[in-house]
């Protein structure tokens, strides 16, 4: 390459660096602006809430009305099911059988001790929250539980769902 060509290639390279830096800076500023539109704090009731001291949990069914949430305890396992009917949002009724009952639901035989029935339009859910009758399009969501390391309280996180066999060991 001639001297002139080398010089011109170098100039072209520097120009490109300069362009990259320039556009990069502008892009960075606009990225910052876009980031500002993702809220960091919300003025809403939180989705992660403290429920109860686990030693005050009753065996079987516990209901928390202000969160519309069932928390079940069997032995050393606990899990949480929403009480909000997935059809139009009514609060479902807890229907205990008092004993283990075998039922044929959707072609399968299952054993259960309770169900959830919605008083508004007749949706029916199995013990695990699966929908088997009525207009609701899906089953009741299960939410994860944890023990709050700060206070030792049971905490539910209603911002995400877990599978129906999810359990917390206490």
């Amino acid at each position, binding site marked *: 390459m001639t001297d002139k060509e080398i010089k011109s290639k170098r100039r072209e390279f520097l120009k490109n660096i300069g362009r990259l830096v320039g556009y990069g800076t502008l892009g960075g500023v606009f990225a*910052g*602006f876009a*980031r*500002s*539109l*993702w809220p960091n*704090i919300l003025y809403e009731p939180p989705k992660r809430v403290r429920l109860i001291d686990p030693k005050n949990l009753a065996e079987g069914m516990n209901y928390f009305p202000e969160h519309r949430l069932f928390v079940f305890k069997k032995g050393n396992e606990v899990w949480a099911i929403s009480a909000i009917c997935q059809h139009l949002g009514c609060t479902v009724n807890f229907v205990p059988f008092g004993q283990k009952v075998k039922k044929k639901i959707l072609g399968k035989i299952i054993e259960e001790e309770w169900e959830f029935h919605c008083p508004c339009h007749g949706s029916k859910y199995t013990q695990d929250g699966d929908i088997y009758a009525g207009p609701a399009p899906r089953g009741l969501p299960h939410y994860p539980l944890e023990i709050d390391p700060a206070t030792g309280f049971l905490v539910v996180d209603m911002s995400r769902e877990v599978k129906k066999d999810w359990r917390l060991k206490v």
Partner: protein
Amino acid sequence: MKEKLYQVWRALIWTFDPADRGEAGKAITRNFWLHWFPPRMTKRSLSWGYSLWLGTISAVLFFILTITGIILMFLYVPSVERAYQSIKDLEYAVSFGWFLRNMHRWAAHMMVASVFLHMVRVFYTGAYKNGISHMAKRQINWVVGMILLGVTLLLSFSGYLLPWDQLAIWAVTVGTQIARSVPILGDDIYYVLAGGTRLDQNALIRFYTLHVIFLPALLLVLFSYHMWRIRKDEGLASVEQEKIARKSGKPVQPEMVFSTPWAVRRIILVSLGTFVWVLFLTVFLESPLEEPASLEWTPNPAKAPWYFLWLQELVAITTIRIGGFTLNGGFIGGVLIPAILGGAATIWAFIDKSPPEATGVWFHRSRLVQNLVFTFFALLIVGMIIFAMYFRGPYWGVYWPWAWPELPEII
């Protein structure tokens, strides 16, 4: 493949990087953004020393304000209950919220300053004159420019109220009370501006609407006309100098420069430079926020924003008690004197009798007197601003800037 990509790339950017003179000329009519410019401009009109590029700087600042303003519209709430909190959230809880607010505020202050300096430059270079051009009527642009200055001040003033803190509400109280002092119409002006008899939610939403849509739209329309008139007036006033030289027989051919890419590149330079300056202020200087607005107590002293401080100082010194009668300083200092000054400056473009040779050149001899008078008033205004900012302390008393008396706290 590479060849295809390169062709697409060229098709997109050829107007900004013309290969030859033919393309340079065609680009002006084929690119929406470039149609604003003539195919070529004189090198002198593009020089740093002539215009100082203050007009472009002002336009760039307006653009920065528009972009940051639009983002802020998603985050600020114009309600008397929520406004202050939304600003506090910007400062502490929104990612880059402090950045947005600082940039918006500093660009606003810079824009008021640069529009003012642009006016000063235009006056000193006699650029409102028409030289020997028969078709040019640059006085019109001077008037439009003065209106633009007013709109810029109103934009800044309406924006000042929005944080709804003590600084906002009392600064706007001072300003609207000055407006109220206009005889006969004063009370009605205040009533419509504030949407009531005092500054409350109605005032906030009116100022907000003025600030985010009405005044920016007005400014955009006037600015477009302002730019169009430059084309109609055959370019910046400096071109008159070349015309005069040629007419007198001098073998002068003005050095012409293709608008694309050279003028475009310089505009990019000025834009980037302005932006980097605003970025510097944004990163290193904070934006103040005082206590939440309360009409039950007034901060001591209560001051208008800096670009109106000269008005407040004028009002203070024209409020003179003669026996049992007090001169209405609000009207004299706040309305009459500024109206006279502004009006005189505006119509001067039509009255100026200096020769055509004084067009488009700095400090022409024939305009010495008017330049001195103008300088006197400009310095007076700037002086009053500085004085009111640093030497007026609590109770509007005069103190050395380092010796302001300490005001008590609560606990």
